[in-house]
């Protein structure tokens, strides 16, 4: 019998249990663009080695079971992911058309925020050295509200 579906975090690290790569982030530092794979692939040393010399999560989008209450982004009262809420509330739409995404059915961001999350997802880089102000605000677990702090700022182009 197939295992019951598990809700996946689309912004996981490679060392999480059952981690799998579902996309690769190309583009440029100020305009990262995610390319989605046909199928999510289990994380292997060989796959992670393709990201060398940088961190795997600078290059790959990795999904793994949502840690729920163990994660600093999880709102136990609302049983929801604040990172997903802030992604939708703070980040601009990257694409109107949705990516064809191998993990959508099980993705917490999709389950919680729907198409609004998927339209913003392609600009997410999990380990990001050139975040915009809104990305920085969304990623900060101490920022609870999805209220923008000011105009977004671009990082200098490489």
């Amino acid at each position, binding site marked *: 019998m197939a295992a019951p579906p598990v809700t996946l975090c689309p912004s996981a*690290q490679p060392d999480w249990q059952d981690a799998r790569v579902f996309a690769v982030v190309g583009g440029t530092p100020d305009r990262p663009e995610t390319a989605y794979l046909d199928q999510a692939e289990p994380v292997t040393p060989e796959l992670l080695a393709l990201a060398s010399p940088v961190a795997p999560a600078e290059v790959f989008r990795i999904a793994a079971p949502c840690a729920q209450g163990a994660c600093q982004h999880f709102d136990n009262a609302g049983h929801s992911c604040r990172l997903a809420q802030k992604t939708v509330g703070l980040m601009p739409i990257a694409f109107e058309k949705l990516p064809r995404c191998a993990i959508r059915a099980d993705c917490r961001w999709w389950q919680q925020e729907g198409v609004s999350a998927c339209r913003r997802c392609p600009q997410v880089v999990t380990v990001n050295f050139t975040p915009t102000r809104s990305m920085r605000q969304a990623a900060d677990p101490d920022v609870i509200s999805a209220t923008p702090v000011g105009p977004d700022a671009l990082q200098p182009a490489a």
Partner: protein
Amino acid sequence: MNQPSPACKPAHIANTDVEAMARQGVARALAARQAMMEMTPEEAAAVGGGLTLALAKPIIYGGLFTKLDVMNLGGLSSPIGF
């Protein structure tokens, strides 16, 4: 920042193309690290609200449960918020 591109759709690739796409990703990531190092104090202040020191670190867009040195960050200090 990215503008909505109604005519465009995010890329979709075959699993056999991961290696080639990862090379592009590594090039972008290295350029991003380089761009961070080359920011002027004014640019740093504009982006980070004056916390220039903090800008030498990446953000982690997601949960984090282990130390960063397992993530190939090359000896950089802890990311923002952790």
